[in-house]
C-alpha cells in the first residue's frame, strides 16, 4: 500500500473541507482498502466519513423511507421498517458478500463499489477504467463475467452491487452534499452511468460530493417481491446474474412492476420498457416469459458470456414468478 494521510472527519464541514481531487472518502473500506492494497486506488488522503451522523432511517415527507448514507448494510437490511415495507431491498442486501462485510459496509459505499473485472484489479493489465487509454483487456480476453447491455468499445465491465439492483427496481433518489455545503438530489437511474468513452467514471457524482442519504419511494412492492441471485457458490460470491422483481397487484392485474438486473451492465440495469409492458397484465407464466424475451432482446453477449442471455431470461421468469407467488 502506498503512503497516505488519514483524516477522521468530525463533521460534514470538515469532511467537505478536507477533500481534494486526490483524496477519497472512506466508509466501511470493504472495497476501497482492497483496491489500495492492489495498487488500483492510490489516494494520498483518506477522509473517514463512516462515523458522521448520517445513520438514521426515517419516514420522509413523500411517504417513503430515508436511509442514512453512513448506516451499515446490516443495520439497513435488518431494520424493521425496511423489512416490512421494502423487503426487496432487504433481500437484495442480505444476498451480498458475507455478514462480516455487510457489518462494515456503508450504504453510500455500496453505491460506489467498483467493478470486479479482473483486468481492473490487476495493475499490470490493460484497463481503461483503471488507466484511461490503456485499452480494454476483457473485450478480446476473458469476458465471461462481463456486460451484455450498454457497454462501449472502452469498457465492458459490470457493476457488482446487489443492493443497487434492489434500489433500481424500487425506485429511489440519492442525496449528496456538495462541497459548497448545499445538497442535490440525483435520481437513482442517473446515479450510475454507462462507460461510454469515460469508463473511469462509474457515477455522475461530482468531485467532493458526499452521499448522505437514499430516499425510497412510497412502498409498492412490500407484498410481491423477489431477489434472485445466480452465483458460483452459495454465499460470498458476486452475481453472474441477479434479478430484482417487484409487483403490485390489484384485482388480479399488475398495477405496477419494478424489474432490474445485476451482473449485466456498467450500472444496475432497469427494464423500464418491461415494467410498462407488465402493467395491466394478468400475471402468469406466459406473460413472464414474454417479459423476459422483451427484456433480453437487445442483449449482445461476448464469446465468453453467451450464457447470460439464456440465464437472464430464466432468471426474470423465475424472479417474477416468485414475486407473484410470494405473500409476505
Amino acid at each position, binding site marked *: 500500500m502506498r503512503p497516505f494521510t488519514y483524516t477522521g472527519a468530525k463533521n460534514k464541514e470538515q469532511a467537505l473541507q478536507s477533500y481534494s481531487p486526490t483524496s477519497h472518502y472512506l466508509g466501511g473500506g470493504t472495497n476501497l482498502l482492497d483496491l489500495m492494497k492492489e495498487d488500483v486506488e492510490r489516494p494520498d488522503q483518506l477522509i473517514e466519513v463512516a462515523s458522521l451522523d448520517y445513520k438514521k432511517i426515517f419516514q420522509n415527507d413523500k411517504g417513503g423511507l430515508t436511509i442514512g448514507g453512513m448506516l451499515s448494510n446490516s443495520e439497513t437490511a435488518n431494520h424493521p421498517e425496511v423489512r416490512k415495507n421494502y423487503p426487496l431491498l432487504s433481500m437484495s442486501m442480505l444476498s451480498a458478500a458475507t455478514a462480516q462485510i455487510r457489518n462494515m459496509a456503508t450504504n453510500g459505499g455500496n453505491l460506489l463499489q467498483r467493478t470486479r473485472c479482473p483486468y481492473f484489479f490487476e495493475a499490470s*493489465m490493460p484497463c481503461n477504467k483503471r488507466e484511461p487509454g490503456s485499452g480494454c483487456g476483457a473485450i478480446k480476453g*476473458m469476458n465471461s463475467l462481463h456486460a451484455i447491455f450498454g457497454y462501449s468499445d472502452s469498457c465492458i465491465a459490470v457493476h457488482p452491487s446487489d443492493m443497487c439492483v434492489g434500489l433500481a427496481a424500487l425506485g429511489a433518489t440519492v442525496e449528496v452534499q456538495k462541497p459548497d455545503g448545499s445538497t442535490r438530489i440525483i435520481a437513482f437511474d442517473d446515479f450510475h452511468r454507462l462507460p461510454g468513452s469515460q469508463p473511469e467514471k462509474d457515477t455522475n457524482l461530482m468531485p467532493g460530493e458526499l452521499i448522505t442519504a437514499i430516499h425510497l419511494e412510497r412502498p409498492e412492492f412490500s407484498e410481491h417481491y423477489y431477489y434472485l441471485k445466480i452465483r458460483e457458490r452459495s*454465499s460470498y460470491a458476486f452475481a453472474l446474474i441477479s434479478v430484482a422483481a417487484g409487483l403490485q397487484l390489484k384485482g388480479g392485474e399488475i398495477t405496477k412492476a419494478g424489474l432490474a438486473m445485476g451482473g449485466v451492465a456498467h450500472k444496475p440495469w432497469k427494464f423500464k420498457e418491461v415494467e410498462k409492458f407488465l402493467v395491466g397484465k394478468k400475471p402468469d407464466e406466459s406473460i413472464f416469459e414474454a417479459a423476459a424475451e422483451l427484456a433480453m432482446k437487445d442483449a449482445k453477449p461476448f464469446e465468453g458470456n453467451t*450464457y447470460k442471455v439464456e*440465464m437472464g431470461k430464466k432468471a426474470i421468469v423465475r424472479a417474477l414468478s416468485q414475486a407473484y407467488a410470494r405473500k409476505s
Partner: protein
Amino acid sequence: MKTIKASGIGKPIDRIEGRLKVTGMAKYATEFPVENKVYAQAVNSTIAKGEIVSIDTSEAEKAAGVLAVLTHKNAEKLKAFEEEMPELGTTTIAPVLQSNKVHYYGEYVGLVVAETFEQATYAAKLVKVKYKEETPDIHLDKSRAKAYKPTESSDFSRGDMDAGMAAADQTLEATYNTPIEHHHPMELHAVIASWNNGKVLAYTSQQMVDNSTIVISDTFQIPKKDVRVVAAFVGGGFGSKLNTDRHVILALMASKKLGKPVQLTVTRNQMFTNTGMRQHNEQNMRIGAKKDGTLTALSHETLSHTSTFQEYQEPCGNVSKMLYKVPNNLIKHRLIPLNFQTPCSMRAPGEATGSFALESAMDEMAWKLKMDPIDFRIKNDTQIDLSEERPFSSRLLIECLRIGAEKFGWKERKMEPRTNTNGNWLIGYGVSAASREAPYKKTSSKVIISLEEGKAIATIQMDATDIGTGSYTIIAQTASEYLGIPTEDVTVELGDSNYPVTPGSGGSWGAASYCNGARAACENAIAELKRKKNIPEGEEIALADLLKQNDLTKFEAEGTAEPSEEFEKYSVFSFGANFSEVWVDKDTGMSRIKRMVNVGSAGKILNPKTAYGQIIGGLTMGVGMALTEQTKIEPNFGNFITRSFADYHAPVNLDMANVEVIFLPEEDKIANKMGVKGIGELGITSVAASIANAIFNATGKRMRDLPITPEKLIMAKLEPGVES
C-alpha cells in the same frame, strides 16, 4: 500392570494442542519472537515469457526504510539444475533470481527488504522492470504437438486394449477435464530466515522438515548439519508445502546479505503463482464391457502441462491400473511444457483427478448397460492388484459400497434421469468408489521419560509436522498406549530438524509412519528398562515402577520403524465409497448438495474425531473441485485472473451438505504393526465423480468438465427432452 488404557489409541479425544491454537499460543512460522528482524516483499514478473531488459531499483532503494533490493543482477550464485527439465521432487533445489529469463507470469524477479512490512510492500511497487516479451505458450489445446512422454513409467499396459474393446458388447469413449486448482491453505507460505555465521535457522511453513533442510543446503551448497528448520505448527498444506519453495531461498539470500533475520510472507495473490498448483488435466477414457457388466478393456490417457523448465507429472491414470478387474488395460501420461509455474502435488495427486475420470466413466458405462452402478463395480472387484500382480493387504471396497448404499438409501434411487423432481429442482443420486495408496515410511523418534512426584511422564520428539491433521494428538495417544500412561502425561514436540528424522507429512503416510515411529521408541524404552533389571518381556509393570526399580528419574530411548519385507509383497491401500444427493435448479443451473455419505476402510482409526475431520475436509475439497473451484487463465497474457478468495471459489458452509462419515473396522497388520492406514487423501478421492454422477441422474446431462457451474448447466440446456 498397565495403569491406564482408557486414553490410548482409538479414542475420540480432543486435539492436545487445541487450546494452544484457539488461544493464539501455537506458534506458526512468522510468530516466533525473532529479534532484529526485517521484512521482505517479492517482486513478480508481469509477462509470461521473455527476458528482463533492465531493472530500475533506484526509486525503491531511496524509499523509506529500504535496506536492500535483490535482482538477478546482484543475487548470489546458487546451485543450478544439472539437467534439462529436472523432475520436481520434495528435495529439489529452488534456485531463484539466477538469470534474466522469465518463464511464467508472476515469477519472482526481485526482492525488496525494508525495516517494516509496509515499507517493503510499498517499495516493491517502485521497482521498474522492462521486458523483451515473447509470445507465451499458455494453451494446452493449441500446443498438443509439443506433448511428450515424461518417463518410462508414465505408460503402462497389460493385455491388448484393442482386442478388449473389440470383444466388448458395449463401449464408451469420453474426455474429462479438470481445471487448474490451487491448494490455498489458510496459513500463507511464510518464513523467518536467519543466516548467521554460515548457519541457517528457518522458521518456515513446511510439510517436510528434513527435506527442507536438504533443499536449503543443496541450493546454497552448505552442509546439511548447518541448517535447522522449524515448523512447529503448519496451517494447512495440501501438498503446496511439500516443496521448499523459492520464497524460502529468497529470504535466506537476503538474510545472508544483510546479516539480519528476514521475514517473508507470500501474499494470497502470490499463492496463485509462486507456491504450486494442480495443473489442468485432460483425461481420455475408453471402456469396453460385456452385457453382463464384465469389463473387457479400460484405457486412461492423460494430457497435462508442466513448466518450461521443470517436470511434474500427476499420475491420474494410476487408479485405472488397480481398481477393477480388467484384463486389457492401457495407461498413458503426456506433458506439454507451458509458460506457467511448475505444478506440484495437491491433495491425492492422481487419485483426486483420476478418480473423477474413471468413476464418471464407470457410471456412464453402467447407464449404457442399464445396470446399477454399484452392482457394476462389485461385478468387477478384484482382491489382486493386477498392475503389480500381488494381493491387496486388505480391500473392503465391496463392503464400503454395500454399507454406504444401505445408509444412504440407495434403493430409493431411480435409474432413469429426471424422474425425481421437486418444484424447480431436479434431484439425483450418485455413487463412486475411492482408493488411495496407504504408504508407510521409515520414521525415527525419541522418547524422554521422567519421574515427577512418583508419576511417569513422557515427551516424544520427532521432526514430523502437524499440518492441521492431528499428528500431535495421535502421537500422544500412541505413546500413551505403548507406555501405559495417560495421554495428558505425554508431551509431543514436533517440527524441528534437530529431532529424529521422519518422512514428514504427505502422501497419507503421516499417521502410520509417525505413530509406528513413536511406538518403536516407546517399545525400545520399555524393553531396555526391563532388560536392565532382568524383568521378563511379557511381564506387565507400570512405567513409574519400572523407573523406580532402575533407580532412574529420567530415561531416553530412540526407535525407528520401517516397512517390513511382508509389506513389499502386498499392495497396501485404503478404500472408500462416496454417495451424494444433489439438487439442480432447472432454471438457474445452481446445484445444491443435500447430503453425502462417505464410507472408508482405512485400517485402525487412531482417533475418530481427527479422522472425521480429515474426511470432512476431503469431502469439502471434493465439493469445491466438483462445483466451484477453478483458476482461470487470461487467454492473451497468461496470468491467472482468479487472484483472491473473492474469485477463486473455495466452498462455503452453505455449499456443504449433511455429511455422514463411516469408518469400517479393519485389521490390516500387513500395512504396519499398528494397522494404521492413511486417510488424509482418501476423503477427497472420487467425491467429484459422485456429484457429477448425481447431476447426471438429476438432469440427464453428463458434465465432464469441472467445475460444474451454473453457466455450464445453463448451456447444457436443462429443459425436458433435450438429450445429452
